[in-house]
């Protein structure tokens, strides 16, 4: 039972991590709090719903739904957000918040308000026996996806040239610019990739939770809590924050089911008082 609940917690955690990693990456490099991240997540879910409908292939869906989301995010960055980096944060927040409204209404206009179901791939529909209890195979996929994404992110940022440039630009964008790096391009890439992760979260969540117009706003609160606990801008912080929140939710449901919704935010406040920069936060990626 404890093991099953631990795995349940892990699955919540890894889904949150997909969102929080994108959020924290974008903040770390662009210094932008991506308010529209939840809407990108929602779009990921709806795109996967349509792609699944047309292709019938889950794996194609899992790749292309986030890619479509990233494309839209790219347009937002190039045509709108880019012009506001020099302004105060409020302008970026306002812009991204207006995109939340626009995307939410677009989704309603295109897909309607009724909830959409996405089928799981055939090989992941069943369940496995773990410690004598049934456990959904699909949930295991989510649990595995989290660490894979974390490792990919970490190796790209530390081992590749573009990764090092991104880290450099996040530490001092003027110096990076002066050294001949194409900082605007780096920013676009980071925004694209962060949004891809948000879309991936949506695509992964769709078969589990169904796509609804309110899903974006709902997950944003939790993702912000993760990022604040882990430290804004820190990938491993987001990983740790997700794990903490996921397990707190899982064991909270076992011990005190009535107050479980509160626990992540209590945890967030405690961390905030003790380490305002977050558990692993220090600025930069």
């Amino acid at each position: 039972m404890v093991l099953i609940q631990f795995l349940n917690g892990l699955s919540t955690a890894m889904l949150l991590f997909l969102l929080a990693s994108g959020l924290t990456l974008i903040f770390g490099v662009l210094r932008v709090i991506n308010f529209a991240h939840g809407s990108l997540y929602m779009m990921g879910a709806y795109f996967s719903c349509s792609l699944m409908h047309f292709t019938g292939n889950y794996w194609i869906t899992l790749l292309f739904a986030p890619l479509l989301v990233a494309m839209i995010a790219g347009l937002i960055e190039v045509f709108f957000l880019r012009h506001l980096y020099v302004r105060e944060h409020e302008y970026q927040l306002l812009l991204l918040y207006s995109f939340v409204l626009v995307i939410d209404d677009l989704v309603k206009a295109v897909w309607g308000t009724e909830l959409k179901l996405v089928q799981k791939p055939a090989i992941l529909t069943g369940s496995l026996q773990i410690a004598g209890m049934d456990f959904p195979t699909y949930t295991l996929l989510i649990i595995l996806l989290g660490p894979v994404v974390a490792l990919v992110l970490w190796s790209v940022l530390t081992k590749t040239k573009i990764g090092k440039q991104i880290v450099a630009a996040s530490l001092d964008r003027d110096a990076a610019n002066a050294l001949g790096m194409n900082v605007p391009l780096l920013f676009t890439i980071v925004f694209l990739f962060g949004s891809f992760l948000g879309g991936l979260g949506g695509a992964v969540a769709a078969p589990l939770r169904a796509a609804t117009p309110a899903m974006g706003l709902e997950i944003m609160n939790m993702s912000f809590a993760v990022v604040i606990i882990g430290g804004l801008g820190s990938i491993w912080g987001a990983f740790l924050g997700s794990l903490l929140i996921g397990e707190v939710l899982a064991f909270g449901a076992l011990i005190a089911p009535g107050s479980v919704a509160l626990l992540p935010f209590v945890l967030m406040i405690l961390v905030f008082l003790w380490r305002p920069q977050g558990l692993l936060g220090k600025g930069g990626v």
Partner: protein
Amino acid sequence: MIGRGLLGIIVAMLAIWPAYGGDVIKIGSLNALSGPFGVLGVEQSKAAKIAVDQVNAEGGILGKKVEILIRDDEASPAAAARASRKLVLEDKVNFLVGVNGSPAAFAVSETAKRFKTVYLSSGGAMGAGLTGKECNRYTFRINQSGQQFYRADAEYVANTFPDIKTVGGLNPDYSYGHEMWEGFISELKKRKPDIEVVTDVFVPMSEKDYTNYISALIDKKPDLVYSVFWSGAGVAFTRQAAPYGLFEKTRFYLAAAGIGTTITSLGKKMVRMWGSEPADWQLDNPMNKKLVAAFMKETGGKPPHAYVAHSYATIMILKQAIEKAKSVEPDKVIQALEGGTFNTPWGKTVIRKGDHQAMGKVFIGEAKPNPKFPFWTLQDLKVIPCEKVSPSVSETGCVLK
């Protein structure tokens, strides 16, 4: 989508069309067209529109054309109050119908009372007060009250599963979830005093990930689980719980129309469970068949859930009441409605005079695959007439003013 846009334009045009004296009867329809209950509200509005079209095709009411003005109540009391006042004061509607959720329905009931406009509630507002302590002369509840449901549920469970010893609850954490669970347990204890409650969990409305609660529930090994999740929550929960084997390990009872929205959404991906509904689309009577045919034509084969039938019924009940009263005057229509018997998609229904609560039926059955359809249906239906499970008027505390 384009259809809805067009509909919006048509509705807007109709709204600014000069009212031709008494040649039209205007009905304001309120439902949640956005937000988490939008799933429900859009289909309910569609049903009201279908009813109005059918009424007009057969010559309207008293020779007058019926006009329907569809508005969003956002399932919120503030929005419902605003929209209903606007309908009454600016659009000059003769009647109000619909409204999703008790808080919004109470707000519209206030508008009805204040501006003396007859309101037929059909959106699943189940709070006891609407036809209880907060009742008023202008408000009628066409759908069942929560009390009617949980009493029928307890009756069915006690008779159908005499062997159960333990029950668990998993319900939404707001007044409705608490009222239904506590009501069900106290009614079940009257019939089976030795029943043991092994778990009662309330899940926040905002929660979309139920996995943590599912394992905890299975661990407690209840013989039966009682839940009133509805709309999107019922669907999401069912899909998440199935791979954990919950529906094989226990009898899951999804009450108060939750099963209806879940079964029509999940189709052939439905799982074994039991549950209660305020109507059923498979019922064999002319009015129901007409509704089902029109609705399935619009949705491409998706059967209507029970609240679609209720929304449709409000228009048909209004038609019968107006024809009986030979007038749209509120006082005369109220007189016709009070104690009257009306044809609905679920059969003849009396509206009780003392508290304006409709005495419909509760349909309870088991969800099973159906060889006749590409989706599951509710089968072995047991019908419990509301007269059998309603609190008396004096018990409700309603004094009509």
